[in-house]
């Protein structure tokens, strides 16, 4: 039976198989994604990032539990989790261990958890993460949590994929200078201070608050025709009261403390995006960046198919003999492929 039809009808095994096809970038996976794309765009995509060991998986576990059984009278949502862990650059293997913290989600048909390895990608996600998220969106999951690899200072791809990005901090990880550096903190829509029962929580919160106060109202970089610009241009007509200042929420994920408040902040951010037009803006930025990535890959593949092996070797030889510069070599190779 047709894979995408089975997925739309709620067949979980078909969904799992489809996710594998997408990860392997197979023709079947690509075709199913083409068919399913018109069913996407409904889910709230929530990214969770932060250094290794800050408790991202435990937070995802608690948030998923919360949205399955909200205590504020709201209906239960269908929840999916995509958890990314690193692939070894030496062997290509990976140990994906995020499910260890998510055992409480077991036995609930309204939850679907999928682990994936980065398979060589460096931005904190895998190349196929966006595709997996689309498939889960089309399958009807309403909240999709995307957990990045343990991230440092530059793994910021999640901000392009998610509507709402949570950056998880813990007490004792760094001072206020760390907090004003560029990178992971500035992609936060919500700052989570997990392990808030540990000493040093006040100092950590002060450092984060200090960073927020030094900062200017949110200007988000978006990609437009391959160039980075700030969303300010597109948002210029919005008044200052529409700015979102990332809230800080204290949690103790292992005990479920602070989770309702964090869930409320996530829902609040969604409302804010819908009210200010940010939802559409992020949708647009995400899809545009996805198209750019695909375009790059496709052009590269097509070029490889066309390039003449002998020509390639001869250009490489001229390069080694210093007769051509790398840039001249590229121009020569592109001409070769166009003939």
């Amino acid at each position, binding site marked *: 039976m047709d894979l995408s039809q089975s997925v739309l009808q709620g067949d979980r095994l078909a969904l799992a198989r489809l996710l594998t096809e997408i990860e392997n970038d197979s023709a079947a996976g690509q075709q199913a994604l083409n068919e399913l794309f018109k069913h996407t765009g409904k889910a709230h995509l929530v990214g969770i990032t932060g250094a290794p060991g800050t408790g991202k998986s435990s937070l995802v576990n608690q948030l998923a539990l919360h949205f399955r059984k909200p205590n504020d009278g709201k209906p239960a949502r269908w929840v999916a989790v995509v958890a990314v862990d690193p692939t070894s650059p030496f062997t290509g293997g990976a140990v994906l261990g995020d499910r260890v913290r998510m055992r409480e989600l*077991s036995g609930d048909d309204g939850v679907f958890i999928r682990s994936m390895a980065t398979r060589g990608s460096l931005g904190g996600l895998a190349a196929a993460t966006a595709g997996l998220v689309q498939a889960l969106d089309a399958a009807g999951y309403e909240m999709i949590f995307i957990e990045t690899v343990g991230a440092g200072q530059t793994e910021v791809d999640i901000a392009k994929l998610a509507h709402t990005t949570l950056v998880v901090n813990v007490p004792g990880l760094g001072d206020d200078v760390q907090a004003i550096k560029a990178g992971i903190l500035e992609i936060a829509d919500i700052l989570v201070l997990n392990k808030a029962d540990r000493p040093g929580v006040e100092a950590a919160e002060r450092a984060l608050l200090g960073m927020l106060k030094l900062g200017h109202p949110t200007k988000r970089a978006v990609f437009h025709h391959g160039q980075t610009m700030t969303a300010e241009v597109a948002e210029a007509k919005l008044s200052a009261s529409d700015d979102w200042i990332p809230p800080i929420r204290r949690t103790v994920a292992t005990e479920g403390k602070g989770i309702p408040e964090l869930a409320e902040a996530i829902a609040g951010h969604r409302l804010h995006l819908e009210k200010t037009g940010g939802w559409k803006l992020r949708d647009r930025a995400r899809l545009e960046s996805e198209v750019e990535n695909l375009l790059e890959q496709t052009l590269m593949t097509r070029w490889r198919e066309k390039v003449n092996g002998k020509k390639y070797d001869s250009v490489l030889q001229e390069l080694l003999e210093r007769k051509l510069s790398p840039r001249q070599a590229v121009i020569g190779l592109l001409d070769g492929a166009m003939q």
Partner: protein
Amino acid sequence: MSENKIRVLVAKPGLDGHDRGAKVIARALRDAGMEVIYTGLRQTPEMIAEAALQEDVDAVGLSILSGAHMALVPRVIDLLRKNGQDKVRVFLGGIIPDEDAPKLQELGVAGIYGPGSPTQKIIEDIRNSVRQAA
């Protein structure tokens, strides 16, 4: 695109709390280039089958030291088949008495490995078995 990655679920069903063996295997399979989904201690057969389905694995490795294998393993295999995952190969490690082996193999266990089994043998068995199932 090279050959697709082999995905293996490593799980410890039952109540014994020693997961060192499972972790050694997880690490060895990782170093052999496989993607290992590690689920941790005290998994029920239902949890294992559900994880195997969501993760669409090629093989499941079970580590059992408690002696409950004759109760747990058939249940896992049964659930995998019920879910339509007939092709998923099941491997078993831990303390498994020799006299239980024929019955387990008859149920569909693809390999049984006691203490001291060379990891290289386990890796090769998984590779061959998954290739045959494909």
